[in-house]
């Protein structure tokens, strides 16, 4: 039976890529470990290596094809003793090994990926006051542009972190920055989070404006003492003398299929700390505008990104001065029946849920918090005073989470307006499992949001 060679995923969140180059042609002998082809994504280039031996029977995807979905067969390998006639039988036969592999698609193909594109409520231009030109940009590009623009504007801004320079960023956020700004301002560090976070804070004490990239916020736990005890508290401890104008940024929360130590939402951890500002954008326009605001801010800002969002595109205002103020939530879909408050990747899920609810006659208002500290409680309270119902959605755990904080705020400020208890949709109270089905269960899904909204509307 000929063996199908499938389009591989470079990362758990990759859904498609370009077949850049064939290195083996039809009829070429292939040994295990040989490079067959090169594939590219917006993040990286990778060589496809043969796992089995044989002869390349047929190329199924032409060189230069873009948008090849992960797990699509790209070539067929003939095993010893097989010839081209074996190819003819393939369509009839069940390609058992290939199917087995295809049965476990990367979780990146799960629904949240496509949510923003499908949702009619996704805002076109991010900020209502913007009526200038916009262009479609991925969150990844928006973040890069934000850093590049601020580095052009202010020579004290520099970027440091693991793989930010020569590798162009572990998630390709810093693509091109080394080339433009040089090694003095785009600095590869050793794998020593506590050390370089502290070096960044020390440099900020002296008036520089570091952007410290954590490859993911999971690794920032190595550095959390420097973030909290040094960056957040020094201004207060010094009676206002010493500031820490620094941005700590990187992907936060669950990616896909990376298990417990690489899938955690730190939003409530940092939102707890006076002296820090914490933002967690969803759209590319907000990612750009908030990162620029964070870099200009004279305080330490925790900038929580999301790996799954990096590749998603949104309309972004075309301006070097596109700034989104820290501390301001945004109503991304107006509605009268129930308020759904969320942030980061869960905004997409909430919008999808709102669409489903609309089909059942429930008009949900979706609020993207964008900033978690300071928290724009006013926008949430105003909304709840109209809808009288609140559902919170976050990937983080329930205990002492952002939802818990919002529930407390409602008790304090909107108690008389509530017609139903505030309901939280959170990540399951477990370390993140690896198995695809369990991981799905551990994360808030659209159906969970729909069910919670119906529940508070007494419509379930």
């Amino acid at each position, binding site marked *: 039976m000929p063996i199908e060679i499938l389009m591989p995923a470079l990362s758990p969140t990759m859904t498609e890529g370009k077949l850049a180059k064939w290195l083996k042609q039809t009829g070429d002998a292939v040994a295990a470990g040989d490079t067959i082809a090169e594939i590219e994504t917006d993040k990286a280039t990778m060589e496809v290596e043969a796992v089995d031996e044989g002869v390349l029977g047929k190329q199924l995807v032409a060189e230069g094809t873009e948008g090849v979905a992960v797990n699509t067969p790209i070539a067929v390998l003939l095993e010893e003793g097989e010839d081209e006639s074996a190819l003819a039988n393939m369509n009839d036969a069940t390609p058992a090994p290939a199917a087995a592999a295809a049965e476990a698609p990367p979780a990146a193909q799960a629904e949240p990926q496509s949510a923003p594109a499908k949702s009619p409520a996704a805002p076109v231009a991010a900020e209502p006051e913007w009526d200038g030109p916009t262009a479609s940009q991925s969150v990844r590009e928006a973040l890069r542009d934000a850093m590049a623009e601020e580095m052009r504007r202010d020579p004290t801004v520099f970027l440091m972190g693991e793989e930010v320079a020569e590798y162009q960023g572990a998630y390709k956020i810093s693509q091109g920055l080394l080339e433009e700004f040089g090694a003095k301002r785009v600095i590869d560090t050793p794998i*020593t989070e506590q*050390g370089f976070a502290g070096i960044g804070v020390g440099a900020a004490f*002296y008036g520089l404006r570091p952007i410290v990239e954590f490859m993911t916020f999971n690794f920032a736990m190595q550095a959390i003492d*420097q973030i909290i005890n040094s960056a957040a508290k020094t201004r207060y401890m*010094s*009676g206002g003398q010493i500031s820490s*104008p620094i941005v700590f940024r990187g992907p936060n929360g669950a990616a896909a299929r990376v298990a417990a130590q690489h899938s955690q939402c730190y939003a409530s951890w940092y939102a707890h700390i006076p002296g820090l500002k914490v933002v967690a954008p969803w759209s590319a326009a907000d990612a750009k505008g908030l990162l620029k605001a964070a870099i200009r801010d004279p*305080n330490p800002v925790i900038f929580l990104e999301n790996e799954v969002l990096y590749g998603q595109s949104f309309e972004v205002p075309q301006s070097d001065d596109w700034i989104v103020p820290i501390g301001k939530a945004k109503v991304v879909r107006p509605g009268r029946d129930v308020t759904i408050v969320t942030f980061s990747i869960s905004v997409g899920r909430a919008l999808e849920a709102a669409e489903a609810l609309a089909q059942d006659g429930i008009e949900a208002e979706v609020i993207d918090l964008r900033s978690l500290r300071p928290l724009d409680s006013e926008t949430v309270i105003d909304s709840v005073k109209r809808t009288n119902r609140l559902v919170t959605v976050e990937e983080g755990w329930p205990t002492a989470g952002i939802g818990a904080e919002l529930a407390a705020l409602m008790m304090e400020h909107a108690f008389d307006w509530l017609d139903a208890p505030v309901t939280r949709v959170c990540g399951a109270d477990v370390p993140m499992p690896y198995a695809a089905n369990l991981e799905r269960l551990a994360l808030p899904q659209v159906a969970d949001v729909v069910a919670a909204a119906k529940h508070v509307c007494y419509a379930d």
Partner: protein
Amino acid sequence: MATKAAKSSKSKGATAAKKTATKKTAAKRGRSGPDVASTNRDELLELYREMLLIRRFEEKAGQMYGMGLIGGFCHLYVGQEAVVVGMQAAITEGDTVITSYRDHGHMLATGMEAKGVMAELTGRRGGYSRGKGGSMHMFSQDKGFYGGHGIVGAQVPLGTGLAFAHKYKDEAAVCLTYLGDGAVNQGQVYESFNMAALWKLPVVYVIENNKYGMGTSIERASARTDLYHRGQAYGIPGVQVDGMDVLAVREAGRKAVAHARSGKGPQILEMLTYRYRGHSMSDPAKYRAKEEVQKMRQERDPIERLRGALLDSKVTDEASLKEMDRNVKEIVSEAAEFAQNSPEPDVAELFTDIYAEA
């Protein structure tokens, strides 16, 4: 005092041969004196005065702590004065200094006013952090002093970051980053050593080895008790220095600072020193014998050693030193008075200085 005889051989213009003889004699007696011959009179007296100021200040702080005027933690620097005074004499304006929580001496040495430091200890409005930082957290950008940090070892990446900033801004400045023998086993110290060496940052790491990390002796905490070679794996040169001899400290400091300033990267200085008091005021110091402390005080005290050398070499006389002592005591008394009379912070201060205005 029997040691005076040994001291007297250390007169101006002593030859190398003479010095060697002196050291030998001194070693027999368990005491050697600073080599005052190479330094001019004013500088010597200033070094002496600064050490004395720290000593008297700390004694006063201890007293005020006992009276309940100073709260919380209070880590005194008594015994270690030569380290910070000698190192400060090795740097110039524009250089920066950072340390941990045993920091009163560093503040005074950088030129911060005794009044402001003492008023911070009492948690008053007139303190350097307006009462919000306390003993462990004071800063002065004017004097290049960046704290005042309470987490053991955390000041090391921060100081390395200050050095990073000096280099980034193309300044010729150097950062003195102090750490104790307790901090040298923290992981982030080595993360910093690595990056400082990798990027050739202008930083001098001054390890104040006072032999005890709180109540644990260095022998019980460190696999090797010599600390000057702790940067060896990163190619950072290290020198062990008699941290009870202010001139030896200054000499080693000058070399290390010149090295760092010239762009050659970090240096480590291990200062062998000793603290006479407990780790903090609440430390009963049961972990070491009283005799050990007594012996140090009698034989190695940095202030007494310099005093002896100054008198022996006739740089000054008893009367002048007494006069200086009176002046220093006056400064400390004024500071203590100010610290008690300065009002507590306004209650509105509770919610200020958390964020800088964007």
